[in-house]
């Protein structure tokens, strides 16, 4: 491909190739101080390419491909090239990751101990992770947490935090010094703006942590906190994993170990301030 950028996010190396300069420049600008893949060999390739040769210049639309592809993926307009690159990397992880049990969860760390937050899209895990980072937590990732089946430890995947719609302004206010990508209006998921993880989170990306709490946040309800028993946590996390089945017995042991060793809670929250307060209080109790 004509334009190429290589990077590593946590333990996973990527090579992003594109028919156009724009998406690669956008990725390179925000991932400027990320390391390169181990030994220069990426784990996954992402390809951003034109559907037809003439679509490279005329009404350019970006097809997302790579080592793993979805047959019916719709192209994005070139102005959303950064989003296309991010979606491409996520897709490779979701479809191709076999070394770690992949949980669709945000994770933050403090004092060597990790908090996992998982929930349906819109539950607020990216927003909460970004706000906790602004309060001094280490951001391990807003999208994927990687559980090592050998050690049970959680490895970070601190890609750019994907903030959507109202969350953009909330985080801009809470983290005025943070670095944001360009606003990408009118995407298939609404307005999106990416937040770059802070320097401390990037510097510590290779340091795994022991999970000590699992949270299922749910936005838009009166405040409530209730324990979630291990079997229910197990079922919810199999649903939150894209590769639980593919990992077979390794996945089973990694997940049963996690849910029997780590307490889980569901929290309902009306606004982000209430959520942060609930998380901090729960954290103090679990310390």
């Amino acid at each position: 491909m004509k334009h190429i950028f290589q990077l590593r996010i946590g333990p996973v190396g990527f090579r992003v190739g594109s028919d156009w300069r724009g998406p690669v420049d956008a990725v390179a600008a925000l991932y400027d101080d990320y390391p390169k893949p181990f030994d220069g060999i990426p784990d996954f390739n992402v390809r951003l390419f034109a559907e037809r040769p003439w679509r490279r210049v005329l009404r350019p639309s970006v097809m997302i491909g790579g080592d793993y592809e979805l047959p019916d993926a719709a192209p994005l307009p070139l102005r959303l090239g950064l989003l296309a690159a991010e979606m491409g990397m996520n897709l490779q992880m979701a479809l191709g990751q076999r070394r770690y049990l992949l949980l669709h969860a945000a994770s933050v760390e403090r004092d060597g101990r990790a908090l996992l937050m998982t929930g349906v899209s819109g539950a607020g895990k990216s927003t909460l992770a970004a706000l906790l980072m602004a309060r001094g937590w280490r951001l391990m990732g807003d999208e994927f947490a990687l559980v090592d089946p050998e050690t049970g430890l959680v490895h970070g995947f601190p890609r750019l935090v994907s903030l959507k719609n109202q969350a953009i302004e909330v985080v801009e206010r809470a983290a005025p010094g943070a670095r944001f990508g360009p606003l990408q209006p009118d995407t298939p998921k609404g307005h999106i703006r990416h937040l770059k993880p802070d320097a401390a989170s990037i510097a510590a990306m290779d340091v795994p942590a022991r999970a000590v709490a699992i949270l299922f946040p749910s936005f838009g309800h009166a405040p409530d906190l209730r324990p979630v028993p291990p079997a229910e946590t197990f079922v919810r996390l199999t649903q939150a994993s894209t590769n639980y089945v593919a990992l077979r017995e390794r996945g089973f042991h990694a997940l049963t170990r996690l849910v029997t060793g780590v307490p889980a809670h569901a929290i309902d929250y009306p606004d982000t301030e209430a959520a942060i307060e609930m998380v901090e209080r729960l954290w103090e109790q679990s310390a």
Partner: protein
Amino acid sequence: MVPLDELTAVYHRTSGQTHLVAAPVPEILAALEGAPATLDVLLARLAERYDLADPDPEALAARLAELETLGLVQRR
């Protein structure tokens, strides 16, 4: 088999499927593990290990039929 709470997670190697089961299934599977048995022998084994309120061979046969459907036990 990994006990979680009142439910136990069972990984079935042959099919790659995970099952969440409640009592008396984990107890039945444990009693059969590596030691095939007839219905009567199995019931005797369970009675020996647990306080069975009602040692009913018909109920046990029904549970075994369900587990056979899932592929977790085999009839020989």
